[in-house]
């Protein structure tokens, strides 16, 4: 085999290896949605890139977040749900699933992913998942909601309009 052939062979192998490396399933996490565990929620980042006034905290996985989780975030969420429900709810369950850091509106936020289960006074049940900002108790997103298949669809919740409004 000539030197030229060796050169082409090694070049081809190198390029092939590079392509495999580029296209391999990577072990690192998604750029924006990262799983993380609390390790030190008060540690301040010393990076010069960090913004003024904002305390950037770090997780075990190295992900930084800006919000300050409250110890009683679950109570805040429950209180919020009770305001919405009035006297109609018999039971609220909030079960935690994941703690993770997400990018939202150019801020890295630590969020809690929870399952919320509701039972109303008629014993009807529903559930959904929610992503909560543990600082404010705000529910940022909900998904995986119950799909209801009632026999009498005409008896579902409706409201009667007042046709007087003519702006």
């Amino acid at each position, binding site marked *: 085999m000539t030197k030229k052939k060796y050169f082409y062979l090694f070049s081809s192998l190198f390029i092939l290896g590079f392509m495999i490396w*580029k*296209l391999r*399933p*990577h072990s*690192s996490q*998604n750029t924006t*949605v990262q799983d993380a565990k609390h390790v030190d929620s008060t540690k301040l980042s010393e990076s010069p890139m960090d*913004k*003024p*006034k*904002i305390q950037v905290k770090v997780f075990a996985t190295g992900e930084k977040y*800006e919000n300050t989780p409250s110890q009683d975030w679950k109570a805040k969420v429950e209180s919020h*749900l009770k*305001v*919405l429900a*009035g006297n*109609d709810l018999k039971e609220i369950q909030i079960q935690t699933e*994941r703690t*993770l850091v997400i990018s939202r509106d*150019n*801020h890295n*936020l630590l969020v809690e*992913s929870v*399952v*919320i289960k509701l039972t109303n006074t008629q014993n*009807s*049940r*529903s*559930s*959904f*998942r*929610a*992503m909560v*900002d543990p*600082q*404010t108790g705000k*529910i940022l997103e*909900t*998904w*995986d*909601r119950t*799909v*209801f*298949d*009632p*026999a*009498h*669809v*005409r008896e*579902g*919740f*409706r*409201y*009667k*309009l*007042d046709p*007087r*409004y*003519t*702006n």
Partner: protein
Amino acid sequence: MTNSFKKHLGHIGLVWIFALFILSACNPTEITSSGQRAGTSYANGQLANTAFVYRDSPYIIEGPNYGPDVDMAGSTDQSIPEFITDKPLLQSDCVFPFLSSNAVLQDCVRSYASKSASQQLLPRKADGTWIFPINSPEFYQVNTLFHVNKGISTFYNKLKFTFDNLYSNPSFVGKTKSTPAYLPQTGMFWFQAITPANENYFRNSFLSTYALCNFELNSQFSPAEPELCFGNWAKHPTFLFVQDPSVIYHELGHALIAVMMNYRNGRPGSPAPSYHALRSNLGGYGYEESGSIGEGVADYFSFVMTKRTHFAEWALSKVHASRPISESDPLHISALSETPEGRLSYPQYILYDPNDPNVPIEDVHYAGQIVSHYLVALTKSLQSNCSIPTEQLHDTSTSYVMMLLNETFSELGDLNAVGLDTMWNTAYDPNFFAYRFTNLDENASYLWSQIINPPTYRKFFQILSKNINRYITGGLCTGFTQDESEKLLDDYGLLLFKTYNNDGSSTKNKFVQYSSTGAVSTNPTPVAPTQTHENNRRKSVLVSKELLGLAEVDTVNDVATFYIIDDQANMTNILKDLLFKGFPVNLSTGVASTEYNNANIKVSPGEIVGIIPNLKNKSNSVMAGIHLLATDWDHGHITDTTTGNFKPCVYDDVTTAAQGGETAASCTNTLSSYNRNIKLGTGLYNTEAVQPVCLVQIEDGDVTRWVSQNEFRKKQGLSLQDKDCLGYGGNVVVDDFTFNPHECLVRALPGANSAYYSKIDPQKSYAETIRTGNPDHIYGPGNAILFEVNKWIPPGTKFRCRLRAKFSNCSDCFNDPTDSSKDDYIDAEYNGQKPFKIINFDFDVND
């Protein structure tokens, strides 16, 4: 009687005697009145792990007049036992026959009787069987597991068919596809995440079924648990929904849709796969088309399992609520038939209830009939156009359709947003792969796929049809041509698109495209998508968005431009209903509340109001699937990055440059990412961002301008601090990083910031359309958009909310009319105004 006949009789007699001998050798057991077999030891183990089941509902087995009070003894097949599970408890595994090996998820289904805090899985009986007294709670939970397992097994066989074709059929190997090859590595062929032991991605990775839920005439699927629940009928205590296997299959169908929608939301990795933070769903609040698609496909799954073109003959027909799945069903009105003219077409039959055809109803289940009927018609058409052995007609044709559904839902629900796998069928890592080909990007994908651009009849059938061209016409059944496909779709009024949108354009740049083999390139002249054949469009009428507007006030015909809900009772009930359906809106603290609602049919300070814009169709054809958005969008030019204040872009003759509008600058292009106009970590704002919908009018000397609410609150002598704004969740110690000061005064409530309208008749408003047979002005909860109104707003302040509307049979909502390729808008355009008609909602805030 001839000798020959006598001889035959003799033979038959011998056969009977022989059969009795064999049966006696099997130690036949006696059935007691309770259904319990007596005197059986089962010592030979033949009945181990089995039970006697009802194979179908009492309606099918006993006849239509049977019931509703029921004894299931007559419906239970007590001759041939069925395998239930070989587990010691009533649960079973999910076995997905993946290519040449099995992927197994242990204990993926658990069957219970009813829900309680102390619920325990039922143990197998001491005799090794699952045979419990007929009608007992144990009997029903065993039967539920039998039918759920049957449905799952069928689904996995069809998924195997999909995999075998996608990854082994020479026609498709090497081509892009949506159903990922790495499903076994991520576990996303079920509700399971493959996670390290100390993680808790999904609280439960098994499906629980509850045979005896205390729900009145109801059944449900809850993906967050996940669980299936089957209700009862208090008036007839022995009547149960779970007695109808088609209902079990329908609810399981919802669960399987949830699985298919999330195929792509896990990526293999080391030490464990990674999963998107959210999951995709099909359906939202109230009536909307994605929910209708879900109901239609769930009905279709019942057809796959039962081979019958009617759903819930037992559970729902007793209360006049069952549903046909084909036009040939006798429950239908006579105008319907399995002919091109007689199909259950869109949008004519959106509000059609075959149980009460004279009273229209806006409901996802009945609107979903169009989907189920089309899928059954497609199945039958494949049976007649493809070379399928007679004995395999149903199985093979439904495998084709399920393969189409696998591919379609997998694409629709992709939240990782890459939308493409490597040529080795591994997942791209978003860290190293620059492009996104579906649902904008991984940050905004949930918003895009669920709210901004969710599945509609147009979007769903466009992708389904693309997959028909790719897999059916392109390999599995070339006899089912593009024309055949388009004609059938058009018979249903569903040929709502001009191209198959198969040009592989990136979500952010139409010049970046991927080829059929997945190679990505930048093309100065983009490759055009495959166009539909226009001569196939006969029933599917497309209408210009310019003919959609607001109704004018007509006191004679009792027509308003907007309807306002501002009484406490209605608004409180709406908020409760939203919460219970999984939309817990974040109300502001201290600046708005239903306590301020005064029922004066005006927008008043402090109120939470529901707005129903009365949209009018000024065309001569029906408009359908109207979707109205009050989400933030790119309609402003930011003039100051220290405040984020902006000038509204001029898009129509309503908000003009003289009124403070901007015609140039950033208004000439559309933002490619979804960034809200909120403060960054630097304390500054982005130079470009999406804006809340509501502007406020400010007076500058003789000039009045439409400005951002942040500008108004600082300039009009209000000096409102952040804490006095709507949506502020911070305090003196910590900031609220989700707070948007540009919605300080009036804001559309997230979770209730979009609305749907099934259809609007020609030259009518929505209210007039839906009022037919509805004289009391009863509306569905999904028709309203909710706004919070800050209590500190000075009376007389004028607001303009720039809502955006599009609809499914729109001719100019989905592509640029000047583009000869008719290519669909890329996802990023949904940040702007091009796909939409702007609906301006102007109002004064007054006590």
